[in-house]
């Protein structure tokens, strides 16, 4: 069975600071990796995903994530955050080639960006 661990439950930082959210997964096979975000009062939406190829993937709103297979990690980064990045961020995985999109989520990280 897959599992996902997000290192921080809450992160508070100021605008223009850099953000890095940790994500580690546990699964014996090949995985697809995702970061979803939920802004206050909105639905979950996809930030970025990794299926194969370049392990550094770029998503929307200036976010990027790096897949390090040897560390089973898929950390999310943004060099300079804005107040509008205040949200809850979820790392998720699914087994490669699995029928459908049965995502296994991490516990989420609430990010508060102070203006």
């Amino acid at each position, binding site marked *: 069975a897959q599992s996902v661990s997000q290192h921080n439950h809450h992160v508070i930082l100021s605008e223009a600071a850099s953000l890095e959210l940790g994500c580690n997964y546990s699964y014996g096979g090949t995985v697809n990796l995702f970061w979803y975000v939920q802004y206050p009062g909105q*639905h979950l939406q*996809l930030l970025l995903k990794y299926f194969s190829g370049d392990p550094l993937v770029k998503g929307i709103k200036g976010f990027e994530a790096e897949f390090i297979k040897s560390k089973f990690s898929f950390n999310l980064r943004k060099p300079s955050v804005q107040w509008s990045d205040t949200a809850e961020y979820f790392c998720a995985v699914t087994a490669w080639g*699995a029928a459908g*999109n049965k995502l296994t989520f991490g516990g*989420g990280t609430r990010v508060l960006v102070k203006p």
Partner: protein
Amino acid sequence: EAGVTQFPSHSVIEKGQTVTLRCDPISGHDNLYWYRRVMGKEIKFLLHFVKESKQDESGMPNNRFLAERTGGTYSTLKVQPAELEDSGVYFCASSPRSQTDPSANTGELFFGEGSRLTVL
């Protein structure tokens, strides 16, 4: 294009009562999923429909939960009778069927805003 819509947005019921949550997926999406997040914990998979068929219901907690998707369009999730531990946010998501490989993982799920259930 309308997104995934869920109703109600919030429901407060007493233990032992019945609640039915509804999800309207994005038009044309064959895949429909239910997920649940209890008390700020992980979002957990409940079940997956492909059209009207249950593809995977391994995440359903017990037989008090019944999901249907008659006609392969909208879906309902009924909890009967509700218990205190059923409180949480129930998310619905949909995704299109892969055009090239029906069994391929196409990646993105499109989520609704969730239905918050509070059982007193």
